[in-house]
Each structure stands twice: as C-alpha cells, then as structure tokens.
C-alpha cells in the first residue's frame, strides 16, 4: 500500500508541476505577423510574444468545428472576435504596454497567453 500511496502523491505532484508550475516556451512574432491555428482543443502556438508599444496583428485560423472554439476573447484588452470555421480572422492588438494577457474561448477550454514585451 505504501508504494501505491507514494505513487499517488507523485502523480499529484506531477499534475501540479505539469499544469501550473511548468513554464512553456513562447513564440515571437516574426516580420510583424503570426498565425495561430485553432484546432483539436488548443491554440498553436498558445504563447505569443509581440512587441510593446506597437500595433500587431495576429491571424487566427479556426479549423475545429467545436462551437466552443468560435469565440476568441482577450478580456484585459477588451478584444473579442468571432472565428468563422476555416476562415482567417485578423485580430489587431493595439499598441500596448508590456504585460501578459490571457486569451481564450468563451468557456476557457482553449487557452493561450499574449506576452507583450
């Protein structure tokens, strides 16, 4: 039983580390443009780095029919957009101060982070 309990505790530790403590790498915008694919439960890439104090445009392409995926929200920046299926939708991020802002679908099942540096 001891080993089972230890395994359980380790499993919990892995969950905590994997979902909350791990810092995944981000993808920087190149040549002022970046495209995010909305597919199979995730944004690809999900961490996007854009320059501060400059207007940037992120193009979202939703190829997931799930209705959950159709709304994109960046609450901190008061931005929301409807992503049509298989349509490229350009979302303009106004020139902003450095900071980190979550972007997600209405139900927060799709989550990503916008890093303004």
């Amino acid at each position, binding site marked *: 039983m001891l080993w089972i309990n230890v395994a359980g505790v380790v499993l919990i530790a892995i969950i905590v580390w994997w979902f909350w403590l791990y810092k995944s790498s981000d993808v920087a915008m190149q040549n002022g443009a970046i495209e995010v694919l909305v597919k199979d439960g995730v944004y690809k890439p999900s961490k996007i780095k854009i320059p501060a104090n400059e207007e940037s445009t992120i193009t979202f392409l939703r190829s997931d*029919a799930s*209705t959950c995926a159709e709304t994109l929200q960046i*609450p901190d920046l008061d931005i929301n957009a*409807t992503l*049509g299926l298989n349509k490229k939708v350009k979302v303009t991020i106004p020139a902003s101060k450095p900071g980190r802002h979550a972007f997600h679908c*209405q*139900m*927060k*099942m799709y989550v990503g982070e916008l890093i303004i540096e």
Partner: protein
Amino acid sequence: MSEAKNDESASKHSCCKSKNVATNDLAKDITSGAQDSIDDNSNLAQQEHHLTVEGASCASCVSKIEKALRGVDGVQNAEMNFAQRSVMVTGNVSDASLITAIEIAGYNAKIDASESDEEALDEKEKSDWQYYRKLMRDMTIALLLGVPLMIYGLFIGEMTVNTTGERLVWFTIGLATLGVMYFSGKHFYVGAWNSLKNHSANMDTLIALGTGTAWVYSMVVVAVPDLLPQMARHVYFEATAMIIGLINLGLALEVKARGKTSDAIKRLIGLQAKTARVIRDDKDIDIPIKNVLLNDLIRVRPGEKISVDGTVVEGHTAVDESMLTGEPMPVEKGNGDKVVAGTINKSGSIVFKATRVGKDTALAQIINMVKRAQNSKPPIGRLADAISAYFVPVIMIIAVISALAWLNFGPSPALVFAIVSATTVLIIACPCALGLATPMSVMVGVGKAAEAGVLIRNGEALQTASKITTMILDKTGTITEGVPKVTDVLLADGQDRDHILMLAASIEAGSEHPLAMAIVESAKEQGVAPQKVSGFTSIAGKGVEASLDDSTLLFGNEKLMKDRGINIDGFLDKAQALAAEAKTPMYFAVNKALAAIIAVADPIKTDSIDAIARLQKNGIRIVMLTGDNRLTAKAIADKVGISEFFAEVMPEEKADKVAQLQEEGEVVGMTGDGINDAPALALANVGFAIGTGTDVAIESADITLMRGSLHGLADAIAVSKATLTNIKQNLFGAFIYNVAGVPIAAGVLYPFFGLLLNPVIAGAAMAFSSLTVVTNANRLRFFKAKDH
C-alpha cells in the same frame, strides 16, 4: 481559406510585377497575357470582382484606378468606393489581371475576401449543422454498442471475467469499444493529448482520462484476470461507450440550443436588403447592396426596404423604423430627412442619396455593437473564469485522492471501488457548465435588448444597469419632446408684438439652443423675417446678447437680467405664473430696458408619465435635472410624478449632480440626449443616451436607447435585471452541480447510504449539465420587458 487565396493571387502578381515597369504598352502586355487563360474559355460568364485597394489617398485616385481597370481587356465596368477603398469590376476577366492593372497604376490591391454578415451567418449555420450531424453520428455509433451492453449488465448477466470463454467475448467487446473510442471519441482524445502537450487541461482531458481509465482497467481484467481478486474482475466497456455517446449527444443538443441564442442577431442581419435600385444614367438598375457607392441616388417604392443610409432628395413617405428603434409608429420622411438601412418604406415612393454604405450604415454598426457586446463578459463571470483556470487539474487531483482513499480505507474489492470512483469523478466534473453560465445569458440578454431598441455596449454596463438605485433624467428631450414652442408673448408698455418678435428672432437666430429655435420658428410661422445682428455673444447657461442697428439686445433668464441690472420687478409675478404652468419664461431687454417676456413650453412626451411610474414601481428613485428655473422644473416634475429635481443646473454642473448622488451611496444611472450631458453620462455608473433614433451616437453612453420613449429605459433595466438573474441561476446551478456532484462521485455518500455513483450516470449528468445552462439562458428569449 479565403486569405490563402489572397496570398496566392498576390504572389502570382508579384511575379508579374517584377518583370514589368509602368508603361502603357507593357501594362497591356501583362493584362492581355493574364487574360490568355480566361480567353481559352469563351463561355465564361460575366463576373463581379471585388478588390480592396491600398495606397489610394485622394479622391482623384479613384478615376485613375477606374481608368486603369477599364483599360483591361474584358472589363465592362469598374467602380471604386473611395470611402471603403474597395473596387467592384464586372467583366470576363481574371483577378490577377485586375490586380496587375491597379499595381501598374501605382497602388496595391488584393481580392476583397470580406464577407457580408449574412454570408458569415449562412456559413456558420452550415458548419454548425455539419458539426451537429457529426456529433449525432458519433453518438449513434457509441450508443449502438453501449446500450445493449448496459442492458445486459443491468438485467441479463454479469459483466465479469471468470472463464476463458468470457475472456474471449469481452476481449472482442473491448476491441469494439476501442473502435467506438476511435470513431466516436477521437476528438476527445486528440484534444486531450494536444492540451496535455500544451500544459493545459480542458473538458476533453477529463473525458479522455475517465473513459480511458475505464477501458484500460477493463482490458487489464480481460488480459490478466488472475492478477486481480475475484470480486475485482469486472469490466466497464459499457461505461466507456455510453459516456462517449451521451457526451456527444449533449454536445449536439448544445449546438442546437446555442443556435437559438443568436436569434436576435440573425433577425438584425436579416433586416439588411440584398439589392438596391440605383439610378444611373437616368436608368433604374438593381444592383447588389455591396456595390452601392456613396452619393448614389436610390429609388425605393412602397413596401421595399431602405438599402443603405441616406438623405431623401425626392418624394414623401412614411417609414417603419420599429425594427431598429422599437417605436411602433411610422415616421414621416420628406426632402432632406434621413433614412436608414433596414427600415421599410411604407407609403410613398422616394429617391434618396446614399450617405453611408457598407459597414458604415447605422444597421451595420448596430449589428457590430450587438455582436461585440454579446461576446463580452460582465464582472459577475470573473469568479467562474478564475475557477475555470484551475478546475481540471484540481479535478484530476481529487480523482487521485479519491482512488487512494478507496484503496486505503475502502471495502473489498477496493481496487474496483477506487477505479469506479476516480472514473466517475473525472466524468461528472463539468467545467463547461461554469464556462457557459455567463456568456450564454449575456448573448441572449443583449440580443433581447436590441430587439427592444436598446443597445448595450458591454457586459459590464448590462450588469451595472441591473443594480441602479437612482436614475437621473435630463428634462429637455428626455422627459419632454425637446421641441419647445412659443406659448406667450407678454409685452412691456409701448412695445409692438411683431417688432419684438422680429428682434427676438434676430438675436436667437445665431443660437442653437432649443428654446432659441422655438422663437425663430414662431417668428417664421407668423411671417416675421429675422435680421442680421452684430456682436452676437452667448453667455453660457444664461442667454445671449447682440446689437441690431442702434439697439442693444439682451435675451435670457432672470439671472442674466439681474447681472446686467435690468429691472424686471414688474414682470416677476407674471413670469412665476407662467413657470407654474410648466412654461419657461425668458426675458427680452432692448436698450437695457425690459421689453417683453416670451414663454416657451416643451410638451411632455405622451408616455413619460407611465414610464416614470414603471421605473418607480421597480424601486428606482427618479431625479429630474434641468437648466430651467425652479418653478418650471417643479411644474414639470409634478406633472410627471417626480418628487426630486435639480433646477437651474448649468450644463457643466450636471456631472457634479451625478457625483453628489454617488456620494450618497446611490448607483446612479444618467439619461440624456447626449448633446450637452456627455460628461454626466460618462461619470454616471451607467449612462443612457436616449432618442438618438437610428443615428447611433453611442460613444458617450453605456446604453443607447434608439427610441425617444422612456419606456426604453425601463425595458433596458428590466432586461438587464432578468439577464443577471439568469446568469446567477446558471452560475448557481453550475457551482452546485460540481460542488455536490464531485464528492458524490468520489463516494462520500457510501459510508452513510452505501451509494456510489455509476460512471454512466455521471456521464449523462455531465452531458446535460451544460445543456441545462444553455436551455436556461434560452428562457430569456421569452422574457417580455414591457411586462416589468
């Protein structure tokens, strides 16, 4: 996809461009070259091509671009909309050759991939329908296996593995279940895997883990039953298949129910006309709405929709604007009056000049605003958002703890109890219900408000409007019509009425104040022509002064007269008597002596009394605000049933009054026409702009009431309260569901009642919890604001 097409065209073109310089001959070579591929197909129909042009900075660019396009072989016509930087070309021609021609002319161009709201809606409905059918197909496949298995387990036999024959049968069923997982549940597993790689977790993660655990455990039982005690040799293939089937069914029904939440926006989009009858070269031609250009003359016959915004230049009619403003009575329109897209011409035939087209029309702006507001979240949703961020990993931890607890303290077979409880915890938890609780209600509530002619800017305004305790109503234009009329002219001894009216009209002709306009209008009606004054000065909140010939003219309120030392003692009683009749008396002095009192009255809107009573019945304290004198203010307030008012308030003091009430602890709504009360509207907890009609001056207001009636205000508050109640019901339901469901799934009731939830029941509960939220939000569609 459409963008990809753009890129392709652009790259094709850049290749052409590198080989050419901007000379006419070469241009012709390119265009004819680009045309070759089309010329091969002589049956190609005349087509419309829509392009967007970049770099066109002046109106003269229009003719240059149009000329360049008309020079391309096959082009029949080319028209550019400078305001939208778009160009529409008809002809038997390729997009590439058109782009080339524009680039040679010195500009950049690409295919206009933007689609109309209606096209986008059609696409969405089509893709939702396909998704629904896919989910129903997935559900059917899963339940075809799951239901017979469940019936067998419940009524016919044991789902245990004891003999070699049973092992073989269950192994086959295990493989069939794997097929169901692949064909019907693949999206859950792919989504879960992608999320996992992304260090995030969502509903897919829980479903994949729950069904995956049940299947893996069952296959272990089938593969190596001897490793497990006799009582633990139970298989759960039916749970895996049933859960996948039920969750697909829940998602399918949710897609259907979600479609209904956007009924209001569908109705708004449906108001847009598809074609317009444009007069060109003295001929009426029907063209698609997206091809209408600014300043086009458009003919509309009785019963037809107004296609774009414009100004009537010919004819007279009544227009039904109820679909936008909620105002049931048709509005008379004649020369110089504005008409707006989406409204219906009722009686006469008119010609109007297009002043706003495409995405600039009031209807397009309303649709855009409603869409934005529907996607925004009120602060009440923040807690659910914060919880959502941690929800799934926490549920995974609870599942592990639950399994450990059963293994350590549970009865035999502990392993089975551990597996069942962990699976059930993973399956029953529903982050979607939490996530959907707020946005679904906002979607329906904002749409419902739009149907009543109430435009709510965002979720925050919606929430705050439901909490308003005090409503400030600006008098002029809000409680009253805002179109005052002269009712009395009381002359001093020796004064001539027509002469005084001429002088008064002359000085007031320079003012834009509604009272001044009433005097000018009155003089006009009586055939008195105003003359040009000199030295016109407006004294804010008090009046105006000017000179005419040798006379100095001073027109304004009691304060102004006192400031300038004009004796009005002999007229004070008369002025007070007029004020007591809800009229506004104004003093007119000529050469520093009082010459007359001119009284103006602004009729109270017919339904203001009812609407104010309705607001008061809902517990809202009403305060009237006016620049008028106290007596007039009191008379108006008494007439409409308001007991509190601020009178003689200068325009710049309006915001102070809002602040004063806020300091008293009130949640203050401010309603005005947005003309001189923008600071007060901005300072109020919720600013309501009233009676803007279809001219959507929404920037200074949180909520715009498109009709002039104060019932719109009562409707707005009723809808916001109903929406907030709906959100609270949804959040409460979603929280309670998870807070109660997860512990029950973990087995907390087992020690007391011997009750442990079946994973299939958990799957059904999870599938229908989010459906319940969407269905509850849909109840708002039947809410009737006018009954509250």
